[in-house]
């Protein structure tokens, strides 16, 4: 079964110089239980694809499904966790208030919700700062509370858009370890990144985009030839010949 199914997806943006294809006929399947790195240079169409996948915008043509459902239906989003690129949140709330409110949006309540919030705060190392306003958090703490928010509903698939961008090495390591944990739990992780070394460490599958088109897709060990580093392979795939 596939966690993500994208079929012949095309997204055209209108610019002053005419229409630009942000995504061009993308077809991609992400199997359940895998950690998939979604790679590509800036402007490759990664975030646009993720935004279509989550129903933030409608594609010009084609279709995208997550766990077999159209995510434009609110109920289908119950099984998804999403962390945006450069995440920000309601800074006037405390970490605990944010996670509790998020849980309520997923119809969680009572002692179950409290336990879930406590365990998530502990998991992301924010138990001591749980009752402090988020406006007092560092960049790394903010990223971690947003990540905890992503996991409140115990999602089956986690979609992360550049989860390590702007983080220090410790923050990056935390995110990597969390992704490994999710894989051990049998969850699907679909994440976009520029950090090839990280992708190499945590992913078992890759999808590489360039100029809106999918240029490579499959298990890491099948795609990247022996003796070649992922970085070299990536450059070979995305650089014009």
């Amino acid at each position: 079964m596939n966690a993500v199914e994208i079929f012949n997806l095309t997204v055209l943006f209108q610019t002053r110089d005419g229409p630009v294809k942000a995504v061009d006929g993308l077809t991609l399947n992400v199997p359940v239980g895998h950690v998939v790195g979604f790679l590509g240079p800036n402007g490759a169409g990664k975030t646009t694809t993720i935004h279509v996948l989550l129903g933030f915008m409608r594609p010009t043509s084609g279709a995208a499904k997550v766990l077999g459902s159209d995510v434009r239906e609110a109920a289908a989003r119950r099984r998804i966790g999403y962390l945006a690129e450069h995440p920000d949140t309601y800074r006037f709330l405390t970490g605990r208030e944010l996670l509790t409110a998020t849980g309520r949006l997923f119809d969680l309540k009572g002692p179950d919700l409290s336990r879930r919030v406590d365990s998530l705060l502990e998991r992301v190392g924010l138990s001591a700062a749980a009752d402090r306003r988020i406006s007092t958090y560092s960049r790394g703490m903010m990223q971690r509370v947003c990540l905890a928010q992503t996991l409140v509903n115990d999602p089956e698939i986690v979609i992360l858009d550049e989860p390590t961008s702007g983080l220090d090495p410790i923050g990056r390591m935390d995110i990597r370890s969390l992704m490994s944990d999710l894989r051990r739990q049998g969850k699907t992780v679909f994440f976009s990144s520029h950090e090839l070394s990280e992708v190499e460490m945590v992913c078992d599958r890759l999808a590489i985009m360039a100029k809106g088109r999918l240029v490579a897709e499959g298990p890491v060990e099948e795609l990247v030839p022996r003796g070649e580093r992922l970085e070299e392979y990536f450059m070979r795939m995305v650089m014009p010949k």
Partner: protein
Amino acid sequence: MKKIARILTLAKIVLRGQIRRKDIYVVFMLLGAVVVLIASSDILGLSSVVTYVLETGLLAAWIFGWILGIYSAARELPQEETRGTIFSLLAKPVTRGEIVVGKWLGCWCSVAAAVALFYALVVALVLERGGFISPFVLFQAFALHAGALAVMTSLAVALSTRMNQDAAATLAYIVTGASFLLVPRIPEFVFREAGLRSNLFLFLYHALPHFEVLDMRTRVTFGFGPAPLWAFAASLAYAAILTIFFLAVATWLYERKRFSRSELAVL
């Protein structure tokens, strides 16, 4: 029930934000200081001062609610976009309609609560001066005022679905300000003018909200007693219908909005 719980959760987030931001206190203290200053003057004799305190106090309460209601309601949705938090919110199992209603409800509740405090301040000043206000008349005045705030905030939310915060707030101030100042006088203009102008005034008369039916300041200030119950209920129903209409428009517009990291239009 779950739908209502989600709307209440969103409203609670807005309420917490309003309470923890400073702007609400600044406006309250500034207008409150003006009212207290007026109340402390005793140049017109005691009875005149009570009337004067009521008149200026209730006017200040309306200005306070108007400024704060539109400002805060026009801010909520655009701020979600500028902060980027809208993407995280849209990825949760909430509909865009629930987001619109939750945001509006939070703004309306916070502004209505702040206006209630302002009423309490005015009543305290009147009582301190030896004056009296019928609690039932005061309740009617506040309930209708809250109805007017519901209309103003829902209009601002509707405008903010397609405009940035400044544009939505400015347009909402213009529409509501014009409604306050112009609408009660339009019948005069209709009779005075002829042809196209008269029709234009008639169109404005029917298109703009009639805040005068929700304004009981004169009745409270000059002790005219409570409004007839049928008129009170009809005025509240009028405010409810307008609010629902603006929220329905806001939901319709927001559901069709394409959210993209870039400001480019999707073809």
